[in-house]
């Protein structure tokens, strides 16, 4: 029983990270109909930035928030400078631009910081938390909390602010949005900016676990795809929930199903997703898009 709970909690922690990256993917997808393949690499780059700031002697939380702010600006800049010229092009063209961005960020990070793994600090205490016979890692609990804070922030932003409302409107109906005076292009850029900021948070949360290197996010991006698919690409809350589900399932399957072990863990997670998709094609919490004929 203790193992079970422990596995669930650590699954929730990794799931929170998958969920955060999935959330970032959903943000851009909802605003632009594009899956941002460069999301993971953007998060990785942000994390290197945080590392640089920490090396320069900044206290953790100062570096944390500065990184989030710079990533926000960076996301804005990437959309305005790199993505904007192909805004009107077919979706696959934009996808290729994202792939280009992915290889650039990966390559430049390797070039500047080398491919050697670097340790990255956790803001949470090293001492484990005891609850009866069960031991939790403080970092795991911290990651879950941070994920929930980010989600709550976004919920409030989209539900209760005019800017959030305008972003939702721009994503749904760009033409009508322009007719009420919304600068749709900037809303898209804002979507990228928010996604970059969320990605930065996810990167800084995952780096203490997997160590920092240019490929650290590629595996996580795949799980984030899975989470977003599971939760439905139209639902930010669903994406986070999907992440938690994937994290927990992955842990439990790895622990309790002997022949699977660590080798086929990913395959099993993916197979599950295929099954979910076939049964419920728009994900567990996604909205079915009704198209007028």
């Amino acid at each position, binding site marked *: 029983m203790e193992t079970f709970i422990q596995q669930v909690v650590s699954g929730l922690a990794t799931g929170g990270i998958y969920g955060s990256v999935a959330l970032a993917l959903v943000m851009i997808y909802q605003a632009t109909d594009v899956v941002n393949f460069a999301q993971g690499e953007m998060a990785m780059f942000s994390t290197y930035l945080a590392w640089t700031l920490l090396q320069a002697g900044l206290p953790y939380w100062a570096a944390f928030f500065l990184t989030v702010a710079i990533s926000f600006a960076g996301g804005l800049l990437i959309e305005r400078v790199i993505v904007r*010229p*192909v805004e009107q092009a077919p979706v696959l*063209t934009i996808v290729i631009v994202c792939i280009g961005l992915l290889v*650039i960020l990966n390559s430049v990070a390797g070039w500047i910081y080398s491919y050697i793994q670097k340790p990255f600090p956790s803001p949470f205490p090293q001492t484990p938390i005891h609850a009866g016979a069960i031991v939790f890692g403080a970092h795991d609990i911290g990651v879950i909390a941070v994920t929930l804070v980010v989600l709550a922030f976004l919920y409030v932003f989209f539900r209760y602010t005019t800017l959030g409302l305008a972003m939702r409107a721009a994503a749904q109906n760009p033409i009508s949005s322009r007719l009420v005076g919304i600068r749709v292009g900037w809303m898209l850029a804002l979507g990228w900016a928010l996604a970059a900021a969320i990605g930065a948070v996810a990167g800084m949360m995952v780096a203490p676990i997997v160590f920092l290197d240019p490929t650290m996010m590629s595996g996580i991006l795949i799980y984030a795809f899975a989470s977003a698919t599971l939760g439905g690409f139209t639902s930010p809350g669903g994406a986070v929930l999907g992440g938690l589900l994937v994290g927990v399932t992955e842990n439990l399957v790895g622990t309790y199903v002997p022949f699977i072990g660590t080798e*086929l863990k990913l395959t099993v997670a993916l197979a599950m*997703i295929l099954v979910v998709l076939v049964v419920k094609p728009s994900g567990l919490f996604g909205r079915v898009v009704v198209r007028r004929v």
Partner: protein
Amino acid sequence: MDRQITRQGPVPGADAATRDGAPLDPTGSARAAAGIATTRARGDASRLAALLVLVAVACALPLVLSNFRLFQFTQVFIYAIALLGLNILTGYNGQISLGHGAFYAVGAYTTAIMIDQWNVDYGWTIPVAGLVCFVAGFLFGIPALRLEGLYLALATFALALAVPQILKYFEHWTGGSQGIVLSKPDAPWSLPLSADQWLYFLTLAVLLLLFGLGWNLLRGRTGRAIVAIRDHPIAAEAMGINKALYKSLTFGVSAAYVGVAGALSALVIAFVAPDAFNVFLSITFLVGIVIGGLASVSGALWGALFIQFVPNWAQDISKAAPWAIYGVFLILFMYVMPRGIAGSLRLGWARLARARRGTRSER
């Protein structure tokens, strides 16, 4: 109040046909139609001539190129076959796949296992690989019917991720991460060719065969049905096109092309290993068809040239961060040619024809 109505131009309700000065001369339009027919015939003839020149050049290449360059061009042909397969599915039928690397792997392993385990003659393994992939693609296409756009892309992406792991798992057949080593087949009928040259011609022959078949398929009734499903799925169904059957068949055909390409690559490289068929391969295929031009047969060849040679050039330009150069190249390319090479060429031709027609009518 004064009646103050300004009349501009013709009176409303006047006869519509005469108003625009539209030519109603039937012989004139017949002449125009005949003109179009002759231009089309001329276009076909010049296209055939260009094709023959291209084939001749391809046949002459082994005489002038080093073995390494020849190997690279063999790779280009193989990629072109795979890209045409993916393009049939994604470009023509509108089903985005991020997992065709999986079918490439299945094709390659079919060939490798047949040769390694059962000593089958390599020539037979190529069609068998195509057949196996056709069945696999068709079967995968059935559940995929329920998925659209992004979700289909991600489901296929999952396939691409899972295949290398599965290959490693069935170690007895696949040799695990070590893979399977093959030997390159020699030229048959005591032809005076080296193994590499023979494989080059074999690949070229398969390429011509499959491009011919594909071109024929796509321009005919089936091709129109496939495109109709992409553009107007509901209207297509209303016109009696069996959407489910066509979509899964397209998936099967597409997978078969990629499978044949995979089989050829196993023979040419004489080695298969799971890690060669990673996710990046599938993404490279997607890059290839978009760069080459979606829904274009010739686009497959352009795309193949790009994915084979541009990474090498990037390497030549910067040893430190070659992929950064590649990425920049990719992005710039999409800026300049958002509809791929074939799309831009087509647009260029149309502009040229328009300009020429313009000058002719002025005269």
